[in-house]
């Protein structure tokens, strides 16, 4: 599936070293699906699939190819930390990786940035939490 494949790529692939460096250590404990646990060390990352319809359909049926939109919420103790993680993600996924097979076998092609902005800060237990929201468009075919 897409999100577990992305998780493995971002947390374990040597090619994603810039992303892993921008995350709190160890990276594998600081990337989440849909929501993060309370008290998670910053910076951390949350992955969401915000859209995953077939790339197209025809009289023969829908395509296995998905035209997806994935949201990456980067959280940090400062706006700079959140932005640095988000930029590392964008540069890695669109430029360095760009296309190929994820560790789970999903094949993916990143094609565009559809949203990139800062969200208002949130009050945490003992300070503020800053978030940079990044949405990427990608075509992918899931392995399972």
């Amino acid at each position: 599936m897409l999100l577990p494949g992305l998780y493995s790529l971002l947390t374990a692939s040597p090619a994603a070293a810039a992303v892993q460096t921008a995350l709190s250590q160890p990276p594998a404990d600081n990337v989440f699906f849909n929501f993060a646990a309370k008290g998670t060390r910053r910076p951390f990352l949350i992955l969401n699939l915000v859209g995953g319809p077939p790339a197209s359909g025809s009289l023969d049926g829908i395509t296995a190819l998905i035209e997806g939109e994935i949201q990456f919420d980067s959280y940090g103790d400062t706006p700079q930390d959140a932005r640095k993680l988000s930029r590392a993600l964008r540069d890695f996924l669109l430029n360095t990786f760009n296309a190929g097979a994820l560790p789970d076998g999903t094949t993916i092609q990143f094609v565009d940035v559809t949203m990139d902005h800062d969200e208002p800060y949130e009050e945490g237990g003992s300070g503020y939490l800053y978030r940079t929201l990044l949405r990427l468009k990608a075509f992918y075919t899931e392995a399972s």
Partner: protein
Amino acid sequence: MTNARPGYGSKFFMSSDNVHFTPVAQLKSFIPQGSRQTVVDQTNVLTPDSFSRPLAVRIDSGDIDLVGILDPANTGILQLGTAHASLALYFFQIVLTDGTEYTFQGLVIEYVPFTVTYNKAMGFSAKIRISGALTGPAGTA
């Protein structure tokens, strides 16, 4: 009660010999542009009133536009290019969702083998010029 059926499930076949028909693969739509009569004006000085009198003399069955999703090596799509390059009259058969059939002969007068947009699925398109009549359940149409 209005009876309606979806387009999904309809098929568009073509053949060079009128025996072996192959479906055109991955079509999103096939839309006839309509049959049209050619008329001449037979109004003359003996026409009894002030209204014109058209005379239908010929029917042009028109074109059919095809649009699909490209699978670059799919021979069900590539056959359109073969027909286009041959300049030959091909045989076509349309089967609608409810099984209603239309047949006709035609030329693949336009063929766009691929359309590429960086953030969209690739497509193809073609235009068929109907030669003669479109034959359907009510005869020639």
